[in-house]
């Protein structure tokens, strides 16, 4: 193994390090080739990483010291929320430094990368509080301050949880039915000319119809609204997954089929061992798209017909002019959808780890 540092400002590996070069990890290689940071840069990094704590304290101070413009019950709820957020960050910060002390810089680097965003989040919370509770530029109670929202979410938690579960059940049921059927039709259409002949016209005909158009029809035709909503969500997901997997399979390079054939693969194996794995990136992006269409469909369904779930909770709260409840539901929805998207992303990365290095 030959290693020649290009210039003297880089860390020169000792003989011992040279012997270890053969089994370097990616992270160690990066560190070895990186220019050493000047003391000033190191100091700056530390400042950046402490910035969220500073901004968190600013948010707490703003909430505590600036006089209120509207009455504020249970003021400690939001305060507690802020303190918890800042403490979580401090724990993360400490964890990163303990890890760094143990020789693993990855957590530290990630923290450094994310710190400005966390800082911005705290500033945003402070600004929002200032505009709502403190000055009333955003009129209360139409745009409620965070303390109202967190309080009402806590008070109404049993009902919100019930609605959340209902939404999740409906959404996942529809989503999984749609994805499963979509995979079957998409793969068959992609691989078998005959199937494509019959299915493509259906896709072309039904595809452009927006999901919400179905709702009035379903409300009339379907025997249960729950079943109708599942159907609408499944339809949207089915469409997205069918199109994506069909395209994925049609685009498989002919060379792979030829290679597999000369290696003894049967027709069935060509589908399951070549076409599907090759189309996996496309199929998974179809699943992500299906999820976003399912999220839209469930909200529309719940706001227009279904008498349960978070979408229904929002319209119901609005009709009672409980704007704080409306916002609470909005945050829960936002949280759920983010979590679901993140989970899908993790699955995608795990399944497609062979693509690492291929896409440069």
């Amino acid at each position, binding site marked *: 193994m030959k290693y020649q540092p290009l210039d003297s400002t880089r860390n020169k590996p000792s003989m011992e390090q040279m012997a270890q070069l053969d089994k370097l990890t990616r992270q160690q290689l990066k560190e070895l080739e990186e220019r050493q940071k000047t003391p000033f840069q190191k100091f700056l990094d530390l400042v950046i990483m402490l910035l969220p704590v500073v901004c968190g304290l600013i948010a707490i101070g703003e909430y505590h010291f600036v006089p209120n413009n509207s009455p504020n019950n249970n003021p400690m709820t939001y305060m507690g929320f802020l303190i918890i957020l800042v403490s979580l960050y401090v724990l993360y910060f400490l964890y990163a430094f303990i890890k760094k002390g143990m020789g693993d810089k990855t957590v530290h680097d990630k923290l450094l990368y994310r710190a400005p965003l966390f800082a911005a989040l705290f500033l945003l919370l402070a600004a929002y509080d200032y505009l709502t509770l403190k000055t009333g530029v955003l009129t209360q109670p139409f745009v409620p301050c965070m303390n109202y929202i967190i309080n009402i979410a806590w008070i109404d938690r049993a009902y919100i949880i019930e609605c959340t579960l209902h939404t999740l059940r409906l959404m996942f049921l529809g989503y999984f039915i749609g994805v499963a059927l979509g995979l079957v039709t998409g793969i068959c259409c992609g691989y078998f000319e005959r199937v494509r002949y019959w299915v493509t016209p259906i896709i072309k005909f039904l595809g452009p119809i927006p999901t919400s158009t179905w709702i009035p029809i379903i409300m009339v035709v379907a025997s249960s609204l729950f079943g109708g909503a599942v159907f609408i969500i499944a339809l949207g997901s089915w469409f997205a997954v069918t199109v994506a997997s069909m395209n994925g399979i049609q685009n498989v390079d002919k060379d792979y089929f030829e290679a597999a054939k*000369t290696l003894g693969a049967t027709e069935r194996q060509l589908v399951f061992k070549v076409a599907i794995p090759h189309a996996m990136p496309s199929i998974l992006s179809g699943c992500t798209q299906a999820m976003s269409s399912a999220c839209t469909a469930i909200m529309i369904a719940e706001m227009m017909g279904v008498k349960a779930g978070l979408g229904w909770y929002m319209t119901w709260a609005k009709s009672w002019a409980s704007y704080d409840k409306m916002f609470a539901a909005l945050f829960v929805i936002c949280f759920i959808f983010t979590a679901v998207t993140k989970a899908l992303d993790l699955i995608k990365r795990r399944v497609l*780890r*062979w693509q*690492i*290095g*291929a896409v440069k």
Partner: protein
Amino acid sequence: MAENRHVTLKLEGVSKSFAKVEADEVTHALDNVSVTMESGEFISLVGPSGCGKSTILRLVTALIPPTAGKVTVNGEEVTEPSPNRGMVFQKPTLFPWLTVEKNIGFSLQVQGKLKENQHKVDRMLKVIGLESFRNDYPAQLSGGMAQRVALARTLISEPEILTLDEPLGALDAFTRMNMQDEILDIWKERKQLALMVTHDVDEAIYMGTRVLVMDANPGRIVADIKIPDAYPRDRSSESFVKYRNEILNKLHFGGKHEE
């Protein structure tokens, strides 16, 4: 290690035409080609683009059917691709979603013979010198390494007929010369019938026991030259140069006209 059975591969009056994409016409890639080949031979097919070299390989592996005539192995007509007639392509065409080890084991796996033959995969990894890359994905390999894996993936089923479609065409000159020797070493071990398409006349002579010179429009064999010289061959020896001139003459590129 068991020897393969002796095979005789025959092309009997084989023609192959392809429909052109645009006009309603056909091109004649091969016109009435008859040739017999035996186990133990290493046959180089050399000629200009469009002379049907690759078409012969694709007919032998039954990836495409002949328009007229037939291809037989020991008298039996070939109709379906089989791991007995392996092919190495110009592009490695490794399955990017499988690790090096699983790519090599693919053929055994689809035939349901992987479990009892794991030692063959290990041996192949050793032969191509990529044991430490066993769990890597193809995207992480260099061109030469990928082509070695492709070779191993085909050889694992111990094909009676090994076809190579410009396997070294995409490699740099040094890797190429190394791999010529590697392929020869592998071939010498089992002496299966090997058919290799190449653009490179030197490569054809360096590796082949027999060189089939082909010409285009229509695609046909214009010369069948046996090269009995012992391996390893010296690229600057007198007989090597003589063969080179002979082949170049057949392809109308000769400097020294002997006729």
